[in-house]
């Protein structure tokens, strides 16, 4: 959920730089899949939950990668955190996305939340609230494609694709083939 680029509007020329390309993203997905398996001593009990919107295709890719490595599919779902946001008064209502909990549920499972960019940590805070209303996981871990810093809450990621130091007025833009037609991460501004 990181198309923060709209904020910048027409402020003249931008220095956009690509920090990850499609091959980089594929390698990151593979590494995170291995790290999840390593930490959990195998795929049993793992449930991957993508945070809407761009966390969902990432979650599906990680789950598919784990399936290839281990030969057994892992349950994957999606989480819409719109109703759990703390900025309704500031930003207003917005359309809801699908929350899809795998049939196995999340009770007593190791849930890996997946998002594209970790920034303030508020999305993850909302996702933790949403998750606790669905069930009681044994533990919850967080995987992100990009950690850009500037946390406003005591939240950290367990699996990070790439740490990208940014300033507040920069925008990190993640594009994924499933949503945007191509895979890349750029820093704009």
């Amino acid at each position, binding site marked *: *959920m*990181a*198309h*923060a680029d*709209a*904020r910048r509007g027409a402020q003249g020329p931008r220095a956009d730089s690509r920090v990850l390309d499609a091959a980089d993203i594929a390698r990151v997905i593979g590494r995170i899949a291995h790290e999840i398996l390593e930490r959990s001593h195998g795929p049993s009990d793992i449930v991957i939950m993508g945070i809407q919107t761009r966390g969902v295709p990432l979650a599906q890719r990680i789950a598919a990668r784990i399936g290839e490595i281990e030969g057994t599919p892992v349950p994957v779902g999606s989480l*819409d955190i719109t*109703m*759990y946001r703390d900025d*309704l008064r*500031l*930003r*207003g*209502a*917005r*359309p*809801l*996305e*699908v*929350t899809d909990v795998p049939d196995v549920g999340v009770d007593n499972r190791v849930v890996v939340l997946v*998002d*594209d*960019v*970790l*920034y*303030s940590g*508020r*999305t993850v805070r909302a996702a933790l*609230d949403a998750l606790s*209303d*669905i*069930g009681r996981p044994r533990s919850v871990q967080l995987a992100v494609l990009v950690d850009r810093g500037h946390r406003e809450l005591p939240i950290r990621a367990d699996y990070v694709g790439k740490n990208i130091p940014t300033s507040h007025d920069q925008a990190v833009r993640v594009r994924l083939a499933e949503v945007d037609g191509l895979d890349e991460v750029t820093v704009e501004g």
Partner: protein
Amino acid sequence: MRHLLSAADLSRDDAILILDTAGELGRVTDRAVKKLPTLRGRTVVNLFFEDSTRTRISFEAAAKRLSADVITFSAKGSSVSKGESLKDTALTLEAMGADAVIVRHEASGAPHRLAHSGWIDCAVVNAGDGTHEHPTQALLDAFTLRHHLSGGEGALDGRRIVIVGDVLHSRVARSNVLLLHALGASVTLVAPPTLMPVGVDTWPCQVSYDLDDALPGADAVMMLRVQRERMNAAFFPSTHEYSRRYGLDTRRAALLADDGIVLHPGPMNRGMEITADVADGSRSVIVEQVTNGVNVRMAVLYLILGGRAETDVWEMSA
């Protein structure tokens, strides 16, 4: 969307947004924790000047599922029975810090007055005003129709809906005609000439006086309650004659399209506008309408109280 006063205020896109939102919120009903924190700290007032069980309970359930605080105010046993005016009641609510007022009133236009008089600053939702409109009922009917006829997505293009009965006294009929028309459905109103309102020829629908003529092949039929409490004259010769000509029985229900459904906004006069066989039969979605009512009202409260963003910047800090 600041208020919801009339189905006419809703564009096709607005209506689809509300129905889509209701669809997602409906999934909460299936969870262990049937509550969302979205409207925590907001106050919703149920202001009911007219008796209503299901609409009031439905709005109350919807607001509570979104964690809003709910104050219920019914005219009986309140200062209204001592002669307090709508204005003074409104000022009291404003002073209590209400964020939204759900209003039902026997006078057509009361919600509009409340919303545009400047008495109060909060959002107003029309929960039925006189014989004028009942937009959330139309939304829940549209939701139910869409679920059965369009796979729960998009609009109702090309579907044929027949609305039968006391159109004259029905706010449900008017709201439904407007909303279903906006969603692309073709609506036929059927009623005895005495129960058809003046000016119905300007509504975006067909009008018929013969139920057997209108039903064949229709995708859905919505039976309206005969509102005897609003009738101060003889609109039809006898109950028996009314149900013979305009009641829905098993034979007539069989005239619908193969997967055609039967709706009724409730409360039903069983044996008058609808037989018990049909009301409890396999085509009936009447109980489902009640469930959908809560989801649709959650969607309306969320979208209205969420309001428009203060900026149109769609930036999110992930």
